[in-house]
């Protein structure tokens, strides 16, 4: 089976200072890979090293297919005068020379992508007026228009209500079955357990592998710095959110 992206002993960061070290992982078609780690643990840096926004300091990183980022939408300006279709259409600029505007064919592709993510009814809506989950789906459509085979999602579930989360997760599952690889930075451990692989990051890589094998208490404590609690009754584990973290 082909490999979409592969890192071996990767250190990456900004201005020569590493934010993540010793990262080794692999994404193959059809795989959903969760990036787990605390805030500042290097999840975004890992995604940015794939896009080239963070610099590779040592080790190797090979990305062999077109990729697209689905950023956290607060980065996009919500007062910007564009529709969902305009945003989806932006994905087509990758394949056009600078003097050419997207034409009828590109528009059809952009509409198709919105259809794929279930947003075609809202194609004419202003992007900033959509809900957080709808904006995520529009940005995924933009990635599909780019013909990306590796999708990089940076905490796409943040700020989503339960039903939007569920819809987004279903969509991610469907996109993976279409021979895409999907890297998803997330804070939701239970979600990560449902996916194919996890990368645990806390400045350096703690673990990589299938969640069932990798996610034990020792790995989680190393990843989140000890703030792990067992949830009584269901046998699962939870991460203690930082604002509940009391130090003596």
């Amino acid at each position, binding site marked *: 089976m082909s490999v979409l992206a592969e890192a071996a002993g990767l250190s990456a960061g900004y201005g020569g200072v590493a934010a993540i070290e010793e990262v080794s992982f692999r994404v193959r078609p059809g795989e959903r890979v969760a990036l787990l780690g605390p805030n500042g643990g290097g999840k975004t840096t890992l995604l940015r090293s794939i896009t080239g926004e963070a610099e590779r300091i040592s080790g190797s990183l090979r990305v062999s297919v077109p990729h697209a980022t689905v950023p956290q939408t607060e980065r996009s300006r919500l007062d910007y005068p564009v529709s969902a279709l305009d945003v989806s259409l*932006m994905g087509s600029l*990758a394949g056009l020379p600078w003097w050419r505007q997207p034409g009828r064919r590109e528009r059809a592709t952009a509409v198709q992508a919105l259809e794929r993510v279930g947003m075609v009814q809202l194609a004419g809506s202003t992007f900033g007026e959509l809900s957080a989950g709808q904006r995520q789906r529009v940005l995924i459509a933009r990635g599909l228009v780019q013909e990306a085979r590796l999708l990089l999602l940076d905490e796409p579930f943040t700020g989503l209500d339960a039903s939007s989360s569920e819809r987004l997760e279903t969509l991610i599952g469907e996109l993976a079955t279409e021979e895409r690889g999907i890297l998803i930075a997330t804070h939701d451990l239970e979600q990560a357990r449902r996916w194919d692989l996890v990368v645990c990051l806390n400045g350096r890589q703690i673990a990589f592998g299938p969640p069932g094998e990798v996610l034990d208490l020792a790995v989680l404590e190393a990843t989140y710095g000890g703030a792990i609690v067992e949830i009584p009754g269901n046998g699962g584990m939870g991460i203690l959110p930082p604002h509940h973290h009391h130090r003596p």
Partner: protein
Amino acid sequence: MIGPFSDPIMQRALLEVTLVGVCGGALGCWVIFYGLSYASESLAHGLFPGLVAAALLGLPLLLGAGAGILVAALGVAVASRIPGVGRNVAVAVVVTFLFGLGVLLALSPASPPGIQGLLFGDVLGASDTDLALSGGLALGIAAALWLLHGRLLAVGFDRAFARSLGISAAAADAAVLTLLAGAILVGVQGMGNLLVVAVLVGPAATARQLSSRMAPMMLLSVAVAVLAGAAGLCLSYYAGTAAGASVAAAFVAAYLLAAFSGRTALPLTVEELP
């Protein structure tokens, strides 16, 4: 509104206002969303000594203004490299220095009378050469905006994404600034050094109240600029007020009308880009 425009002078003024309106109105939308309102005011004021020098030497005003913009841009670029001087401070220092220099030249006893008019513009006094040059520039600006539309839109929306597509955000900024310099050149003669910013910001801010899509906003902004410009000329014709100032006042009136008409498409505040 037809009456005043049977006068050939007023017809030329209307043509001038239309050219200024097309450039300023369309580009103004990008000025707003790229956070360049301050930059446009600075460029306009910074080119003043060039304008005055051209008038004193009897050269085409457009030529002087072009040289003035180059000097101002160079000055800002050099000053912002001085350690400990932020870009805003550098812009403020260079621009006030240049503007002061221009005023000093314009108001010196040796200057011919009427040169102060450069501050407030002379929309009624455009020569054939001026109109032809402005027309050419306006055409170039409109064509560039049409060609670059998709890319400017992508960069303004999400710079990191644009970079990932291989679109340079810095090149987009430079393109908008270059076009801005061009639009100021078109507008500065008619509107004057102090009022040219009005055509770059007023109609676009008005259109922003009424539309939430870039392309319609730009068309609306051009329409507002041309119509308000014509209204300002009429006001000047009947009330005997200064033409440039009347046009600027009409832009402000259009903005207030749109702002208080109760239909706000988007929030008023626009954050400046870092």
